[in-house]
């Protein structure tokens, strides 16, 4: 099939791209940077040769760390001409079946032998390989492949891949959020393009990025953050196009109460027109300032010219430039602060209406106060989801929500996930399965009834047989 160059462009790896390296079930998120050494599975790799290749290409890692695209696909299986036994009754596990020593194998590796060839050598030098059953032989080869194949695949990042990566590599960073639990959160919160979603997370930005992926650059995402600034390193790994970041806002929770009370001071000089005017004024002022200074410096300079060497004159010029630099830096800082203020005001405006479409919480903070504080920003009939590694905090949330009213369809759930090996006559669940993936509390907001604290009709205890006949309205 003729490759249409233009069509493929979006599927080609470019310098600066955020990608995910994969070998088997091991993933690692990295950025393609020229001549930068990257460590993956105890090997140093240079990703330069990946630029221009298609995503999902498998590369061989050459000695030296450079990549080479893998062309051949399983040409000669090491099993082709080998006999097999019927069962293991005569196979003695004495550790002496493999004739190659560890040193021999190292030597082969150093010679630059490909993984496939090393495996063939191992099979050839295995004394009892022909006695193994066919299934056992396949299993042996698979195991060696995992150990000796020197390949890496480069993938385009996605929520699925990053969630699996974080859960496998650094679960502590994401509060042990298992990826199927994350999947539930995204669906239960009805994340979709065009909505306005509030997020409070301490999962390195994985939850935030996943939400942004599902919004496709439409609508807005507001990250409520504790402390000094929003932490969202994980968002970079998604490799979103620049315009996605226009939909991302942030708001410090230390201002939430003020915002709700209407006392938040967002008096920043907002219209950008004013900003540029100010910029111009400041630049002009700067110029003026510099000139007299230069003149002043000029005179002592002139005086000392006779006694100073050329270097000294250079030093004075240097000083002038340093001062200019300091001015410029202070100017940049001022502009940044103004920009920050402007953004804060804009985000406050988004929140003030209390008409957000969804709320997602996944953090190491106690979820109860976070939930109660942020629910106020949602419109009625909108979903919210709270993740917690532990069940007890969610039990508290559940009880609190029942007391306060204003929510329906509350559910405390967790998901159980199991993988299977599917092979002819060898199908079974895998031996190990994930112990736990955290818990979720989900629900929907409703119009708050201000007459009485809701005596909720949906009792947690099994519902009484008879329904209350009177209205609960006061």
């Amino acid at each position, binding site marked *: 099939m003729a490759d249409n160059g233009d069509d493929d462009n979006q599927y080609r790896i470019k310098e600066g791209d955020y990608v995910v390296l994969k070998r088997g079930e091991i993933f690692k998120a990295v950025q393609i940077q020229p001549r930068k050494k990257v460590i993956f599975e105890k090997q140093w790799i240079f990703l330069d040769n990946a630029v221009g290749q298609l995503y999902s290409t498998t590369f061989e890692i050459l000695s030296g760390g450079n990549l080479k695209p893998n062309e051949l696909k399983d040409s000669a299986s090491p099993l082709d001409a080998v006999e097999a036994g019927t069962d293991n009754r005569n196979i003695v596990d004495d550790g002496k079946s493999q004739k190659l020593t560890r040193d021999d194998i190292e030597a082969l590796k150093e010679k630059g032998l490909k993984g496939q060839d090393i495996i063939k050598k191992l099979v050839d030098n295995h004394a009892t390989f022909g006695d193994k059953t066919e299934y056992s032989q396949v299993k042996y080869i698979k195991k060696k492949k995992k150990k000796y194949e020197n390949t890496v695949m480069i993938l385009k990042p996605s929520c699925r891949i990053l969630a699996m990566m974080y859960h496998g590599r650094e679960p502590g960073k994401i509060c042990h959020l298992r990826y199927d639990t994350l999947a539930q959160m*995204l*669906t239960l919160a009805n994340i979709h*393009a065009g909505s306005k979603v509030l997020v409070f997370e301490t999962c390195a930005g994985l939850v935030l990025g996943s939400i942004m992926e599902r919004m496709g650059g439409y609508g807005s995402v507001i990250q409520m953050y504790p402390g000094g600034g929003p932490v969202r390193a994980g968002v970079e790994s998604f490799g979103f196009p620049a315009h996605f970041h226009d939909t991302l806002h942030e708001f410090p929770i230390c201002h939430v109460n003020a915002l709700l009370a209407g006392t938040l001071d967002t008096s920043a000089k907002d219209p950008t027109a004013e900003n540029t005017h100010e910029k111009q004024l400041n630049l002009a002022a700067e110029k003026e300032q510099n000139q007299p200074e230069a003149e002043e410096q000029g005179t002592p300079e002139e005086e000392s010219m006779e006694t100073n060497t050329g270097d000294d004159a250079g030093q004075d010029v240097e000083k002038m430039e340093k001062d200019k630099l300091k001015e410029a830096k202070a100017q940049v800082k001022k502009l940044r602060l103004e920009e920050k203020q402007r953004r804060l005001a804009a985000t406050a405006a988004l929140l003030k209406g209390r008409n957000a479409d969804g709320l997602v919480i996944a953090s190491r903070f106690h979820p109860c106060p976070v939930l109660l504080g942020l629910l106020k920003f949602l419109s009625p*009939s909108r979903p919210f989801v709270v993740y917690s590694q532990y069940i007890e905090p969610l039990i508290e949330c559940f009880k609190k929500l029942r007391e306060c009213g204003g929510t329906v369809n509350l559910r405390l759930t967790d*998901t159980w*996930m199991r993988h299977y090996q599917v092979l002819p006559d060898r199908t079974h669940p895998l031996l190990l399965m994930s112990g736990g993936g955290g818990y979720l509390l989900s629900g929907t907001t409703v119009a708050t009834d201000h007459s009485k604290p809701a005596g909720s009709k949906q009792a947690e205890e099994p519902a009484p047989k008879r329904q209350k006949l009177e209205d609960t309205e006061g």
Partner: protein
Amino acid sequence: MSFVEYSDFIQDGDVAILYLSHNNVMPVKVQQGAQTQTRYGVIRHSTDLIGQRYGSKVTCSKGWFHVLHPTPELWTVALPHRTQILYTTDIAFITMMLELKPGSIVCESGTGSGSLSHAILRTIAPTGHLHTVEFHQQRAEKVAEEFKEHRVDHLVTVRNQDVCKDGFGVTGVADAVFLDIPSPWDAVGHAKVAMKKHGGRLCSFSPCIEQVQKTCEALQDQGFEDISTTEVLLREHDVRTVSLPLPDFGPDPETTEEATPAAAPNHASITLKTTTLPREMPGHTGYLTFATKPRT
């Protein structure tokens, strides 16, 4: 109102969800002048629904409940079943594992009652498209009608044909394919044709392990990679307050006179907030097999 975009007020022609109680939700087609009978009494659309906010409380003669804006999740538990459907737990996992997002082009068969279809549409809107195939004529017609009522018909094409014989009706456009049919191995080849040249994701849902085995074999033969089979189950926890009585071992012989007899042991109990699991829980829905189509 639409299933892919929120609105604030109920209007004539909307589909709204009546949340009667936990595990009791009812869809209603809002119509000027119409009435709907519920266990709490009659609701009159013109006065009780139209013009009201989504999320408001509706009071009837025998009680009250809330009206909610439709979402695919609420629709899944409220929709009239014409076939066995997929529930939110599986749907959520499928959505993430197929990497669905705004703009995705998806092929699905069989459409069935449209439970998954609505969830897909919500995720791929506003720029994606769903090509869904249903071999049962009445079901195909019914679901097309619903898409229209739910204001998502511009995002979906329903085809009444047999996917195993005639495929999805499109070539080289899909980012993802989903199969929930009795013989998915017969549709794998068609799935490959429907998918983009540069690759995509596939998922097949089957209740029986034999189906899974045949499907995995077919996927392997057709050159799919990363073939993996998983199942997900939901556990729901019931939050309860329980009171556990404390035993009375008689007066403690080592206590001094200061020991208060006031807290009479036979009245003592500890109250705690905890959860219990239901007596029975869904133990199996189906096996989910995922695979990646490489560049062809």
